């Protein structure tokens, strides 16, 4: 279990604030070999399902497995794409409709590498990380989210 410690932990409690995103962008302005940043943000939609509106999603994860898997995805992505930087944050716990639950951030000298890597990361995160979303309706009932 101690080995997990050395891996980056992509999880944050609650929503991802716009100010946090700004801070991470700002932090890359000293890296003057970067020419392109690609950012993906997942935002919780207030979907209406059978007449009931989603108020929030409550995320849970098998954190130890997810951290290891995210590490493997990170290594594979760095091998495949000539990226300068790659960062992923995913919310755990409650995220209200309109708030941000996923922040994927890739940077490279040129744009195609950054955008291709970002898109692939988003697909892999949704398909491969053991994370679950519970859609909480306004009437306090819920259903388990399914990814498309």
């Amino acid at each position, binding site marked *: 279990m101690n080995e997990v410690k050395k891996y980056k932990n992509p999880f944050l409690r609650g929503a991802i604030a716009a100010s946090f995103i700004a801070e991470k962008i700002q932090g890359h302005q000293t890296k003057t070999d970067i020419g392109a940043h690609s950012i993906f943000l997942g935002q919780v939609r207030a979907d209406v399902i059978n007449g009931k509106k989603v108020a929030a999603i409550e995320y849970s994860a098998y954190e130890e497995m997810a951290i290891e898997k995210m590490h493997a995805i990170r290594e594979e992505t760095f091998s495949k794409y000539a990226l300068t930087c790659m960062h992923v944050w995913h919310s755990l716990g409650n995220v209200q409709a309109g708030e941000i639950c996923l922040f994927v951030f890739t940077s490279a000298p040129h744009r195609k590498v950054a955008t291709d890597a970002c898109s692939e990361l988003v697909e892999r995160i949704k398909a491969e*990380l053991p994370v*679950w979303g519970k859609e909480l309706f306004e009437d306090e009932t819920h259903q388990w989210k399914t990814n498309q």
Partner: protein
Amino acid sequence: MNIIDGMKTKVLLFGQLAEAAAPEMEIFDVRDTDQLVQEINKRFPVLSSMHYRIAVNKNLITENTTLTNATTVALLPAFSGG
């Protein structure tokens, strides 16, 4: 290790499985994942109709897998992160 007597497997359940049954349990004296699933379904019949994948020590498995002592098995419904 092939100590069967007193062998303990930790089982973690997630998402709708945790909700329907329990977030974790300990199962004693099962030899492989097929036996483990039979045992779990006896305790929580609701799980027998639910779909999930199984991870043994954080690795997804696709066929019956032998368990040794102090193994952690996780029952994982379809992922829905992001």
